[in-house]
């Protein structure tokens, strides 16, 4: 009994540890293990006190639900349970280990432990194995297969279950556990980081927050005016930090997205991420930033701010309550990092897919024509992007006091204005980036505007102080398969992605002057650049590790054998007393004592000298040879199990290990 209880608890703990992978930090592990322990303690204690099982279940469930209601207040106790799962599925991933997000996990663990602890006394050992599998599968679902990327957790769980077969002698549990193990393994195999893991989060509608946030673009001028103001501090690699990506252009201004969801929700960006991405993690302490956006270094993957909401399309992160001064958080983000050569031949998505990034309502002819002539010599989208960058930069000077605005009129003044008129040829990053974005959109390059900060070299203690003077804006162009690539029409410091290619393109385009002066008819149409298949590169990382295969095949074989043995046992069980005798013969074979075929059952039984064997033989003979045999399986089977247990006890341990899956009995006649 003690062994069984300990084993079943160990199986559940293994499952609970897996489940805890869905939450950040070690707290979830402790909480879940404690939930297993407390449930077991209550159930076993109730058993000692002879409390009826039904009352135990009722009390434990009531306490759990009321506790959940207390921890995560909802309209009613049941709502606390019903709401907890969608809440978890719309939380950041991994979910922060806050009480209200731990509720569904704890409830699941308590329920599984409750059933397991109640049935372990009744010797139904398949339940703990199934419970462990349930927890494991829940973990896999919660993390879209990332909880156990290499299958170690599954193997550990199987190992714990397997240990039970050896120490807890129970054939039914064994076969069933094998089946459950196989099922778990199959689920793992399908959920492992594959190309398209099943994502339960797509099943819940994420809560969407409509935030009335304005574009921070006009802020650039005010920041430029008070350049020394410390906006925030960054600890981490010196990379550009971004505040917000502006996708919508009205012809008069750039607008930020207003619909935000929690970070963990899954709404893929309209334009998929590139094949090569880098991940950076920074710790940010807010200073005099005074905007709702939280600076990040790319598309946020995880953050310590559970209240933060994210624009799923651009990755801009907002704290609806506005960060106070001194607010500190960590955020890890990914950013597209294509290599030089990737971009040269890269294409752009078709206009329908990137409509949002190509919209130019009421584009003036002058701007459209200027853009067309700019890219007349460019052969690929990347060359067009570089050509526009060169054209916008050439002959124009960054001026902090230049008039603000990014309307067509302001941009026309910026680009074509007569020298001397205010804002002609002069602008802040806002005008440079906006002009670039409008021209690029005019020639079919999906473009967005990013408001952010130039990288600042870290000072004392590896902390970089980002000041108002570091604020800037830059355009980003989307290349199919490679993601968003930033361009810098202000300074042209080509150290971003594709810098070498950019120089090569500039050199090539240098021969015909980049400044479009004469309308030039274009040459032969450019061949469409081949679009690289982004999934091809991603497939490499999705390939299952070889050791999974090595471990999986034996597990599969063992599981199939276990199932066949379980099936045989079921058939024998149905056959009643004769089946019981066949079961004894099976056990004899496994014990290496297969009797000669001419020996009748009572003789074999008498030779065994095991209590019960003679009884089984007599009952089996009766069932087989008597007229209108009476069903005697009920008496014969307990005896047969007794004989089997004794035979199994007598064999050396290494034979005991294979006892349940030894295939020889399958073709015993």
């Amino acid at each position, binding site marked *: 009994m003690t062994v069984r209880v300990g084993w079943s608890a160990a199986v559940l703990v293994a499952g609970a540890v897996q489940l805890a992978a869905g939450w950040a930090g070690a707290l979830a592990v402790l909480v879940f293990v404690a939930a297993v322990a407390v449930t077991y303690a209550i159930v076993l204690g109730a058993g000692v006190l002879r409390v009826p099982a039904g009352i135990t279940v009722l009390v434990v469930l009531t306490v759990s639900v009321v506790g959940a209601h207390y921890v995560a207040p909802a309209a009613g106790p049941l709502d606390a349970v019903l709401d907890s799962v969608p809440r978890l599925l719309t939380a950041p991933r991994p979910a922060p280990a806050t009480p209200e997000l731990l509720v569904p996990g704890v409830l699941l663990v308590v329920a599984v432990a409750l059933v397991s602890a109640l049935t372990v006394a009744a010797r139904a050992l398949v339940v703990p194995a199934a419970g462990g599998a349930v927890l494991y599968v829940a973990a896999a679902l919660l993390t879209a297969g990332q909880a156990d990327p290499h299958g170690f957790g599954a193997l550990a769980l199987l190992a714990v279950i397997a240990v039970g077969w050896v120490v807890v002698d129970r054939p039914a549990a064994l076969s069933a556990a094998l089946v459950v193990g196989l099922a778990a393994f199959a689920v793992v195999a399908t959920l492992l980081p594959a190309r398209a893991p099943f994502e339960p989060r797509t099943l819940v509608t994420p809560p969407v927050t409509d935030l009335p946030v304005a574009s921070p673009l006009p802020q650039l001028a005010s920041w430029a005016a008070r350049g020394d103001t410390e906006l925030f501090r960054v600890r981490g690699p010196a990379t550009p930090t971004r505040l917000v990506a502006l996708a919508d252009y009205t012809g008069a201004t750039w607008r930020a997205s207003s619909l935000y969801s929690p970070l963990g929700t899954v709404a893929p960006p309209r334009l998929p991420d590139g094949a090569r991405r880098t991940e950076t993690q920074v710790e940010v302490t807010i200073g005099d930033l005074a905007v709702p956006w939280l600076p990040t270094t790319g598309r946020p993957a995880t953050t310590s701010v559970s209240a933060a909401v994210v624009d799923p399309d651009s990755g801009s992160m907002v704290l609806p309550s506005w960060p106070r001064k001194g607010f500190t958080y960590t955020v890890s983000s990914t950013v597209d990092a294509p290599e030089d050569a990737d971009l040269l031949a890269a294409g752009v998505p078709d206009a329908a897919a990137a409509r949002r990034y190509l919209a130019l309502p009421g584009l003036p002819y002058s701007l459209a024509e200027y853009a067309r002539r700019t890219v007349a010599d460019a052969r690929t989208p990347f060359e067009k992007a570089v050509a526009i960058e060169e054209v916008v930069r050439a002959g124009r000077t960054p001026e902090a006091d230049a008039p603000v605005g990014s309307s067509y009129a302001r941009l026309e003044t910026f680009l074509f204005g007569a020298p001397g008129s205010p804002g002609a040829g002069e602008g802040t990053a806002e005008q440079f980036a906006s002009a670039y974005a409008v021209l690029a959109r005019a020639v079919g390059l999906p473009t967005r505007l990013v408001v952010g900060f130039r990288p600042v070299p870290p000072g004392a203690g590896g902390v970089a102080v980002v000041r108002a003077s570091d604020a800037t804006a830059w355009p980003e162009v989307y290349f199919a398969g490679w993601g968003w690539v930033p361009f810098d029409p202000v300074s042209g410091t080509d150290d971003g992605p594709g810098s070498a290619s950019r120089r090569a393109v500039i050199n090539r385009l240098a021969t015909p002057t980049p400044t479009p002066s004469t309308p030039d008819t274009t040459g032969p149409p450019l061949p469409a650049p081949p679009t690289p298949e982004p999934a091809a590169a991603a497939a490499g990382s999705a390939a299952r590790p070889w050791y999974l295969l090595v471990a999986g095949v034996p597990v599969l074989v063992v599981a199939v054998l276990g199932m066949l043995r379980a099936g045989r046992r079921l058939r024998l069980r149905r056959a009643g007393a004769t089946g019981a005798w066949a079961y004894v013969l099976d056990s004899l074979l496994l014990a290496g004592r297969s009797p000669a075929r001419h020996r009748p059952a009572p003789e074999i039984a008498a030779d065994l000298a095991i209590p019960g064997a003679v009884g089984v033989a007599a009952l089996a003979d*009766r069932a087989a040879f008597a007229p209108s045999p009476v069903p005697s399986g009920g008496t014969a089977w307990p005896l047969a199990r007794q004989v089997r247990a004794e035979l199994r006890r007598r064999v050396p341990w290494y034979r005991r290990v294979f006892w349940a899956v030894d295939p020889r009995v399958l073709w015993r006649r």
Partner: protein
Amino acid sequence: MTAVTGQGVGEHEITAFQVLHTQVGDAVETAVRGKRDVIDLVLVALFAGGHVLLEDVPGTGKTTLARAVAGALGGLSRRVQFTPDLLPSDVTGTSVYDPRTGQVSFRPGPVFANVVLADEINRAAAKTQSALLEVMEERTVTVDGVANAVPEPFLVVATQNPIDLDGTYRLPEAQLDRFMVRTSIGYPEPAHELDVLRPGSTAGRVAQVPTVTSPQAVTGYGRLLAGLHVAEPILGYIGELGTATRADPALRLGASTRGLRAMVRCAQVYAAAQGRHFVVPSDIQRLAAPVLAHRLVLTREALLAGTTTADVLAAAVERVPVPRPS
């Protein structure tokens, strides 16, 4: 598997038979000590309506056994000492003329008894042996065209001395086949022998054997047990045993169909004696040697090699897979 040969026998009847069988066995055992297995075989033949051939050296209790069975049965017991000059009519009986009535009447011979002890049957001439064997099979004695039935139950216990064969007429195989069971008694175990030797022992005192049943009861049970269930696999097993003996290279003659039928009858009684209303394979194995061995004829080579039919039969039993209940 549940095909019934006969209508089957109820379990309570089996229990009653087992009690009776045990009582008869106990009664016989007061006279013949420590030979319960032999007694059981003789009783099997009695209830199965067959006859017993006891092959043993003198002085092991053959005669005592036969008479004790008769005593326990409460029936009539006769003894015929076979000699070379014994005539058939000395066994079966004869017609005599009664001068007072002027009628020819049949005077029954010693076979008109429930238990007939045919002592040293191999000492009589073949003609006399045949006369007895004919009665054993036919259960009637026909004299002057009139059939006289022997009483029921009718058990012939013939004895044969395997040594001292001078001046004997060996029973031909065809006639050996008419005995349902052949067995030997053998010397008793030392403990039992001491018991027998002790002065005042009841061993050998046939007169003290209590009568525990009646010939009618034995006949009734014999008829009843003929309907005891024998499952199809068991019949198949018996058939395969017969085939195995017929195919055995060491045998000139295998088990006859009559022998296999006798096996079925014996198995029915034996199973009932064990308190079962069905036959199991171990019954067949237990009865194989006493029921079948004497019907087999060894080849000359096997005979010269010192093999016995019992050995050959045991080998055949080991070759044939037993029908398993599984």
